[in-house]
């Protein structure tokens, strides 16, 4: 079965602390994974996709096929990083996305 698991509903860190948002997936094929972010009162927007291997706003995510994980990391959290983060898996050729439940990140001053 295709599934994305984000085990933490809420995550709270202090400004300047490292942050890791966990994402595990279940998929029999070759996975394509994404992180989307939703800031307060804004629409969902793409943050990262694993195939691009780039760093956006200081965030990185590495696909670990052995652990079936795609955790999102940032070494020094900023207050403006406070948002809802969703991990998503591309399931098939039509780009249909399977989503996790999301993690609400709060960065405290």
């Amino acid at each position, binding site marked *: 079965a295709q599934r*994305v698991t*984000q085990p933490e509903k809420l995550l709270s860190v202090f400004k300047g602390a490292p942050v890791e948002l966990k994402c595990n997936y279940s998929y029999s094929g070759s996975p394509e994974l994404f992180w989307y972010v939703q800031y307060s009162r804004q*629409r*969902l*927007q*793409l943050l990262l*996709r694993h195939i691009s291997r780039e760093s956006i706003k200081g965030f990185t995510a590495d696909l670990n096929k052995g652990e079936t994980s795609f955790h999102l990391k940032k070494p020094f959290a900023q207050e403006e990083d406070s948002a809802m983060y*969703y991990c*998503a898996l591309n399931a098939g050729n*039509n*780009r*249909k*996305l*399977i*989503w*996790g*439940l*999301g993690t609400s990140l709060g960065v405290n001053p």
Partner: protein
Amino acid sequence: GAGVSQSPRYKVAKRGQDVALRCDPISGHVSLFWYQQALGQGPEFLTYFQNEAQLDKSGLPSDRFFAERPEGSVSTLKIQRTQQEDSAVYLCASSSTGTEEAFFGQGTRLTVV
């Protein structure tokens, strides 16, 4: 406009009423997706269009849900005889080829009372 536009932003419907939700994708985008997001949940896939063709409707929860995109641009999601469990945010997304980034609209929040 520059982005995906959805209307209305908010809709309150009485149980049993029919509703129609509109999505204006980014001009020229071939692929269009509808997702349903219940409170506290992640989005769930409903249906996918490539131009005017509905290639996947496996996520539509019942035959009360119907989507169309007759001219390959604007899409409408129709829900007949709404029920309380239909209350959710309905998200529309479009992408240029289906292999590129999907851009999301602000969503329509449907509340069935």
